[in-house]
């Protein structure tokens, strides 16, 4: 594939000549500032749409509910009172873990939502 080694910038001059040729030979015109406005519209429909995608409130609730369940299960798994020969009561461990690990859980939640739940598939389903 020889063209792979070509520099893309070489084609810009060719581009300008192509436009002149169409206007001169075929009488084809474009509206003033069309390409600038078209560029904006295309970027809005591609790059910016992805960034600015709004997740519905219903979906947010579902996602955060799922995250909360996973987080609680994760916390319970770490502080399993049966495996840990701890003398504390089960409820004490659960309550303590929920409060003392709050910062870590927040970080975990953020990472989990970003990495596992807010995938491209979620956006596609909108």
């Amino acid at each position, binding site marked *: *594939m020889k*063209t*792979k*080694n*070509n*520099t*893309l*910038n070489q*084609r*810009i001059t*060719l*581009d300008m000549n*192509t*436009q002149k*040729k*169409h*206007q001169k*030979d*075929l*009488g*084809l*015109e*474009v*509206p003033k500032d*069309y*390409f600038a406005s*078209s*560029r904006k*519209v*295309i*970027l809005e*429909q*591609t*790059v910016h749409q*992805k*960034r600015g995608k709004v997740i519905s409130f219903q979906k947010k609730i579902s996602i955060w509910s799922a995250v909360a369940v996973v987080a609680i299960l994760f916390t319970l798994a770490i502080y399993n009172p049966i495996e840990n020969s701890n003398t504390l009561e089960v409820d004490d461990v659960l309550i303590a873990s929920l409060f003392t690990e709050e910062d870590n859980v927040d970080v975990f939640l953020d990472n989990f939502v970003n990495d596992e739940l807010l995938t491209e598939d979620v956006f596609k389903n909108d």
Partner: protein
Amino acid sequence: MVNEIDFIKQLTSKKHRDKAFAKLLDLYQERLYWHIRKIVNTHENTDDVLQNTFIRVYKSIDKFKQQSSLHTWMYKIAYNESIRFLENQKKKTFSSLSGVSEKYLENIQDDPFFDGDEVQLKLHQLLSELTENQKRAFTMKYYDNLKFREIADILNTKEGTVKTHYYGAVKFIENNISVITYIEKIKII
């Protein structure tokens, strides 16, 4: 100066994708506009197809297998989107693909973005009298500056076939155009 291989890597990388896509848009927006315009004729139609083309490119860039150059791939998507558009038009108007072009030619002077004189009108008419294959080969080679190999790739045909269509088109235009000086001016030969 960006090498195409590196550019493709940027386009398929999550981190650099959006910036690279904007660059791709800058590089190909105008030339694909003209490529599409000669197929779907009016500016309004071209605008629709151009947008669809870049949306498809954005969604499909991860599927680009690099079996052809990025340049050819972009033109191929634009060409396929244009044909898809014409097929839809055909269904709406109950006419053939060439019928859609003929209808445009009848109303070309009503097009606010056609500013041609008699000679330019004559060239449009001659182009419309070519077979679809001849017209595609001629316009892609002469106006889009594509190589025979690239045109063959876009049209899913053999390079030799494209050359036959192209030279057939040149011969037809040479034999039919009444303004000989115009032929010299555009240097078809």
